[in-house]
């Protein structure tokens, strides 16, 4: 491909090729300080191609290709090329990851133990992990948490944090502009802006942590905490995993160990400050 970018995120190496310079330039800025793929070899490739040959010049439209492809993935406008690259990387993970049980969850670590947060889009799990990462925790990931079926440890996947709408404003109050990517407005996911994690999250991307608390956050109501039964946690985490079925018995072993060993709570919260306080209180009580 004309333009290429390669990066290691946690245990996974990616190579992104693009027919245009702009998405690769955005990735290089956003992922400044990240190492290249270990051994120079990427696990997954993402290609950003013109949807049709002539569309490289006329009203450019980006189609996501890679080792694993969804046939009906809609093309994106070139202005959203950075989002296309990120979606391509997510897609390769979701469809191709076989070594770890992949949970659609955010995570943050302290003292070798980690909190795992999962919920629907808009639950605030990305913003919450990002906020913890600025307040004494190590940010481990905002999109995927990788559970090792052999060790039951959670491996980080600290890619750039994908912030939406109010999450962008919450983090702009905490972090200077040099760590933010460009504004992406009018995307299929609404208004987005990426945030590069703190340097410690990047430097320690190879260090796993022991899961100690599972949270199901929900934004929008007064603070409330409810226990969640192990069977419900099990079902919700199978739904939050993209490769549970593929892993078969290894996935069952990993997930059943997680839900029987680690306490889980659902938390409602009205704002980021309340959420942080709730997490700290539960951490002190349960971890």
């Amino acid at each position, binding site marked *: 491909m004309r333009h290429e970018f390669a990066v290691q995120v946690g245990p996974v190496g990616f190579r992104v090729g693009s027919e245009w310079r702009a998405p690769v330039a955005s990735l290089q800025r956003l992922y400044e300080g990240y190492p290249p793929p270990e051994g120079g070899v990427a696990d997954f490739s993402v290609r950003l191609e013109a949807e049709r040959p002539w569309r490289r010049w006329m009203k450019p439209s980006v189609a996501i290709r890679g080792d694993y492809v969804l046939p009906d993935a809609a093309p994106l406008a070139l202005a959203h090329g950075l989002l296309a690259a990120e979606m391509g990387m997510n897609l390769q993970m979701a469809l191709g990851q076989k070594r770890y049980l992949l949970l659609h969850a955010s995570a943050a670590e302290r003292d070798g133990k980690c909190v795992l947060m999962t919920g629907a889009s808009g639950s605030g799990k990305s913003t919450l992990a990002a906020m913890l990462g600025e307040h004494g925790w190590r940010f481990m990931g905002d999109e995927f948490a990788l559970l090792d079926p052999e060790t039951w440890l959670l491996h980080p996947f600290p890619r750039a944090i994908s912030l939406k709408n109010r999450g962008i404003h919450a983090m702009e109050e905490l972090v200077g502009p040099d760590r933010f990517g460009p504004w992406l407005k009018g995307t299929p996911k609404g208004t987005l802006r990426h945030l590069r994690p703190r340097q410690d999250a990047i430097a320690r991307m190879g260090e796993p942590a022991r899961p100690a608390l599972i949270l199901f956050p929900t934004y929008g109501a007064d603070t409330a905490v409810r226990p969640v*039964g*192990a*069977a419900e946690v*099990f*079902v919700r985490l*199978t739904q939050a995993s993209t490769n*549970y*079925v593929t892993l*078969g*018995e290894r996935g*069952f*072993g990993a997930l*059943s160990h997680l*839900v*029987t060993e680690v306490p889980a709570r659902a938390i409602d919260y009205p704002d980021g400050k309340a959420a942080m306080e709730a997490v700290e209180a539960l951490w002190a009580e349960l971890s």
Partner: protein
Amino acid sequence: MAGPLYIADPEELVRAVELDGLTALFHVPSGMTHILAPPAPQILAALRGEGADAAELARRLSESFEIEGGEAEMEARLAELEAAGLVRRA
């Protein structure tokens, strides 16, 4: 007249974990995971190794548990477990 005989897979072909009164069960031959409520796990245990019809199953379970609904209840549960692929006709 005796009804159809049902049998469950042996213990080495299932992985089961207790979760708050429910059972998460991984069925190795199919690769499927099931969340089971009582009396399903007890029925599977009673049908391992030696098949039984609904009446015999009710008798076996009644040795350890109080069974509500008797044979008709067992027939209904066996139909569900057969549909889920966890028991089969012997």
